[in-house]
């Protein structure tokens, strides 16, 4: 074998490798921020971070949508600069984080609702459901669409003799957390037997399917006549799904829209990482199943440049960045929540 082609190719490979090593160092932005966590935030973040980088060309943000729990873990392990989760860290997670790198600052960055989508051929859109009926469906007590309880709420509606099959999220999800939080609030039975979590043990009496991701739930609801499932508001609006009007605490049947979710959030201006549930709020136009999504940052930033970049980024996200929320069907944060978020961000040094 001739040696010259071998030597030349070896030199070429070495050159490419060196260029790769040094090249990335040269073209990398001055601040490259990395975050990971909730998939709920991902559509909003990808739009917002891109817009931010267009204006602030020295900052680039990389966000990995791996799920709330994994986001918290990566944040505590300090592999990412910020974590995102639909549920703020609980006491155990906070203790682990404090042991790792001190205090944590958690700020709300996104606001969304959970809609109840259904597929019943012949039934009207915006079917009315009360909390008791919803709990009954997911517990398996109401197992057919022509049940008296549903018919009583929807006089004149064409409800066929069709078994109900509920669809839930098989992967751990913030949407599940918000939905089970609501069910636990409206039913003490659900609270004791099932509880609130990102992954719950769904009552076995109900005919139910598990699906992966919002797309999975939507797909199952679309493909199975008689199916009923919970999906994120943004996703339901984007895909034109049929969803129910739920009776809120004030007794009115409310459809999930950006306005009704915003009205619910306004009922509770002072949300904090320890008191963050906004389900089942008072108010005539409040939609009962909503929740915030949170970002966690270290209070003491070791790298001053990075720290400043992070604080600036999230100050922008909770303020001007919210104008991009509507395009992707998220509800912009209410102004009092924005103020609270900015105050929390100001404590980072």
């Amino acid at each position, binding site marked *: 074998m001739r040696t010259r082609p071998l030597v030349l190719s070896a030199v070429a490979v070495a050159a490419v490798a060196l260029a790769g090593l040094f090249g990335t160092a040269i073209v990398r932005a001055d601040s490259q921020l990395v975050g990971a966590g909730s998939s709920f935030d991902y559509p909003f973040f990808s739009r917002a971070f891109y817009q931010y980088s267009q204006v602030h060309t020295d900052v680039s943000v990389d966000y990995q949508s*791996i*799920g*709330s*729990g*994994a986001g*918290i*873990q990566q944040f505590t392990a300090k592999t990412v600069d910020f974590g995102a989760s639909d549920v703020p860290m609980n006491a*155990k*997670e906070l203790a682990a984080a404090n042991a790792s790198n001190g205090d944590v600052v958690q700020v709300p960055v996104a606001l969304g609702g959970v809609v109840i989508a259904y597929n019943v051929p012949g039934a009207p859109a915006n079917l009315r459901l009360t909390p008791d009926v919803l709990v009954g469906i997911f517990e398996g007590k109401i197992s057919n669409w022509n049940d008296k309880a549903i018919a009583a709420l929807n006089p004149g509606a064409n409800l066929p003799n069709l*078994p109900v*099959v509920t669809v839930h999220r*098989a*992967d*751990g*999800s913030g949407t599940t957390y918000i939905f089970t939080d609501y069910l636990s609030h409206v039913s003490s039975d659900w609270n004791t037997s099932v*509880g609130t*979590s*990102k*992954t*719950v*043990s*769904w009552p*076995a009496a109900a*005919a*139910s*399917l*598990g*699906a*992966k991701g919002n797309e*999975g739930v939507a*797909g*199952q609801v679309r*493909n*199975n006549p008689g199916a009923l499932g919970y999906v994120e508001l943004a996703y339901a609006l984007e895909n034109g799904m049929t969803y129910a009007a739920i009776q809120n605490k004030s007794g009115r049947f409310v459809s999930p829209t950006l306005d009704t979710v915003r009205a619910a959030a306004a009922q509770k201006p002072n949300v904090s990482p320890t008191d963050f549930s906004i389900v089942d709020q008072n108010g005539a136009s409040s939609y009962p199943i909503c929740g915030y999504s949170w970002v966690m940052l270290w209070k003491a930033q070791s790298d001053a440049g990075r720290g400043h970049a992070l604080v600036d980024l999230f100050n922008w996200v909770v303020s001007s960045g919210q104008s991009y929320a509507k395009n992707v069907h998220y509800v912009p944060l209410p102004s009092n929540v924005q103020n609270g978020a900015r105050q929390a961000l100001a404590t980072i040094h």
Partner: protein
Amino acid sequence: MSQQTVDIATAGLSLTSTRLRRAISPVGDRAFLATVTGAAWLVLLVVAGLFIVLLLASLPAIKTVPLSSIISTAWDPTNGKYGVLSFVFGTLVTSAIALAIAGPIGVACALYLAELASRRLAGPLGMLVELLAAVPSVVYGLWGLFVLAPIMRTMVEPFLNKTLGFLPLFQGPFYGVGMLAAGVLLSIMVLPTVAAISRDVFLAVPNEQREAMLALGATKWEVLAKAVIPYARSGVIGALVLALGRALGEAMAVVMVIGNKPAIAASLFAPGYSMASVLANEFTEATGSQYVAMLIEIGLLLFVVSLVVNVIARTLVWGVASGSRSRTR
């Protein structure tokens, strides 16, 4: 572990036999020998390392979760319940369905390719069958969700319910997704494994066997049934066991069509859950060291089962292949 990896390992290990070493010329050959041996041992070390890491990471669960909790169907990690029976059941049932469908079809396909097809047809056809193995699992999963599930729900399951509905296996509501859909999807995925290996095994049967049968006046069918298949039996069983190994570990395709409900039901139409699926679904969001350790323990269980199945398969396939290696092709 693919056939190639194992072959490299064997080549590396056998080349270091003393008789051969004396005959090798220095430097260049020695360097090559060292590299190849090193590569072989590296592969084995990686597998051993994987096992050890899995074991160590699942120790918190092995130590704290009682066996009675594990051997149950109640899977509720937030409340400390870790029953894995429904996953084991789901894995075994879907793999059994896959093998029941892909086994006979794969062996028949291999027989056709090895014995009956004309030489011009056998090559391209064999390649097409092997191409099925190249399709990524997640693509199979999506196809299963959007194409197979509706077909199951509207055509296959009602038909089975009408004709075989007296069996509890085929009763109950049809959702399209469920154990049966997952089993059918898995059978399509393991079919190329069965067909390709069985074809090689049939080709490895020495011609003298066939000629002897023909000389005794046997028909084509009798040659196959009485000479080829019995001779290749252990190899075909090895192929089936390999396919089982693949079916046991399949995650992405199964998670989309199995229904993801941790429960054991008598009907094949019902949704279920498998070990690989629960890992795919819950691993990223699992919090708490016991929960994560428990998931890793499920992964360890799956790893051990797949390893055992593969070892059995290799032993069986080598049994027939090595016996006739000197006389093939």
